[in-house]
């Protein structure tokens, strides 16, 4: 494949932009990866197994849920089903991002790296310019390596880390997502969406339990946005 100099330069700039934008989520993922690795170790998974889970599944929420179900031998069907449910939000995310992403023939490969964080940043980027493959990989590469690396450290260090709640590490994920939501704020309509999604998800979490709250909340937010929009006016 020949790449002309100008486009190579542009791609390099896009890649660097991606690597710069992913930095806050990357830092926030450090304690989460450590805690994940430590839980894996406590559940009897080897360091290699924990690393493979992070490298092949690469979906924090589903991985944490799987540690709850993990046993020897592992219940494969329950694990696959729980993973499918928790990650069902990816379908909505992909449908939304597809309209903005310019990944070309690489699409079926690079969607593997779609996680909440880089997807949210791609959506933010899409407000000002198209989301290029170089930008996407600039976010994905460091974020992916970071997630695997801290999983390995956590699984290796295991119990030495102590209770993550003492350092507020368990809250880093929540705070990160609050910051990401703020990036999408477009006034009252976002407020309606956030209120509907948050309250519905909390209620579903209390009644049906996890992971149904993710889908329930996401759909409630979408319905609220649709119901409060004025027809024809955008």
């Amino acid at each position: 494949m020949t790449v002309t100099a100008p486009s190579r330069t542009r791609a390099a700039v896009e890649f660097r932009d991606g690597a710069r934008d992913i930095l806050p989520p990357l830092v926030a993922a450090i304690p989460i990866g450590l805690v994940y690795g430590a839980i894996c170790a406590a559940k009897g998974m080897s360091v290699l197994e924990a690393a493979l889970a992070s490298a092949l599944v690469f979906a924090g929420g589903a991985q944490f849920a799987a540690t709850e179900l993990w046993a020897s031998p592992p219940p494969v069907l329950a694990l696959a089903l729980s993973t499918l449910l928790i990650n069902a939000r990816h379908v909505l995310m992909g449908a939304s991002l597809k309209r903005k992403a310019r990944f070309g023939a690489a699409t079926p490969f690079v969607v593997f790296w779609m996680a909440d964080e880089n997807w949210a940043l791609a959506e933010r980027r899409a407000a000002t310019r198209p989301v290029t493959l170089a930008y996407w990989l600039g976010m994905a590469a460091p974020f992916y390596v970071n997630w695997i690396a801290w999983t390995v450290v956590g699984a290796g260090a295991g119990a030495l880390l102590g209770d993550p709640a003492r350092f507020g590490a368990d809250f880093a994920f929540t705070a990160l997502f609050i910051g990401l939501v703020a990036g999408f704020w477009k006034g009252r309509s976002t407020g309606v969406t956030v209120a509907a999604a948050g309250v519905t998800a909390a209620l579903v979490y209390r009644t049906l339990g996890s992971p149904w709250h993710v889908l329930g909340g996401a759909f409630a937010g979408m319905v609220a946005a649709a119901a409060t929009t004025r027809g024809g006016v955008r």
Partner: protein
Amino acid sequence: MSLDPQALFAILAMMGATYLTRVAGFLLPARLDLSPRMQAAFEAIPAAVLVAVIAPSLLATGWRETLASLIAALAATRLPLIGVVLVGVAAIVALRQF
């Protein structure tokens, strides 16, 4: 370092399930002719998904988490992303002293 074949199989099953969800949205028709309401629903996806994921921590864990979330949300009006994370974590550590 050990790798149990059954553990590997379970991890591969999780990988397959996750990949399906990741690629499915991209397989939907390219040009959907959306009504304004559907358009609004689509535009709401990012915020709705993110809030739904953290709702248990925001609203259904305890007053400390809810208050720390409010503090983080206030910080989000002023600070970049990394600042929001630091303020949020500092807030929860402080609140848990009580």
